[in-house]
């Protein structure tokens, strides 16, 4: 199982803050899998500026996701 978290506008649009799924593979393939849920998810995960972190470290599309990982997706940050 991996934990997937969603933040900010992405969380609101998906109506989901987190989920647990069985997954192993790259971030890109995880996004492809999540996109298959419905059109809304597909649209969200097609966004070019969507950011990803694995275990709270910034990750890229080709980064590998392994059992037990915490994967987070979120829009560009706007703090400060």
């Amino acid at each position, binding site marked *: 199982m991996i934990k997937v*978290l969603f*933040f*900010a*506008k992405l969380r*609101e649009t998906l109506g989901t803050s987190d989920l647990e799924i069985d997954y192993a593979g790259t971030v890109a393939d995880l996004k492809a899998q999540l996109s298959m849920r419905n059109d809304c998810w597909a649209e969200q995960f097609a966004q070019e*500026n969507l950011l990803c*972190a694995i275990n*709270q*470290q910034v990750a890229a599309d080709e980064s590998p996701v392994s059992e037990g990982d915490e994967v*987070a997706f*979120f*829009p*560009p*940050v*706007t*703090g*400060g």
Partner: protein
Amino acid sequence: MIKVLVQVEDFDAGAEVAQLRSTASGAIVQFVGVMRDNNQGDTVASMHLEHYPGMTESSIERILVEASERWSLLGCTVIHRVGTVLPGEQIVLVAVSAAHRHAAFQACEFVMDYLKTQAPFWKKEQLHNGESRWVDARESDDRAAARW
């Protein structure tokens, strides 16, 4: 000496400067970000700040370690509020102490630029007319961070 706080409560900017003061410090530069009552021509009633607990703190610590490696610093404090913030209230504090002033100015602005573009915080504005909207990331912030 690095200190990072992410908190709902307001903070005392003067107390943070006092804490960084020492007989070796020489220069303390402090930035305080204050919530403006206007954004993109609309009156903003309040703002909600969301963050990624854990990652937010560790990414700020990483920024501070990087600043400490680039400049000779004696101390660095970051406090960032989350939750609801009202116009005129403080949002963020970055305070840096160093033996010399130029290092303190540079490091403080560097940390702010990176906070704006790297630390996982997101702002949602509640407008005066009842609408609410997520604040978009600004290209000017990316350019500012890219300078370093």
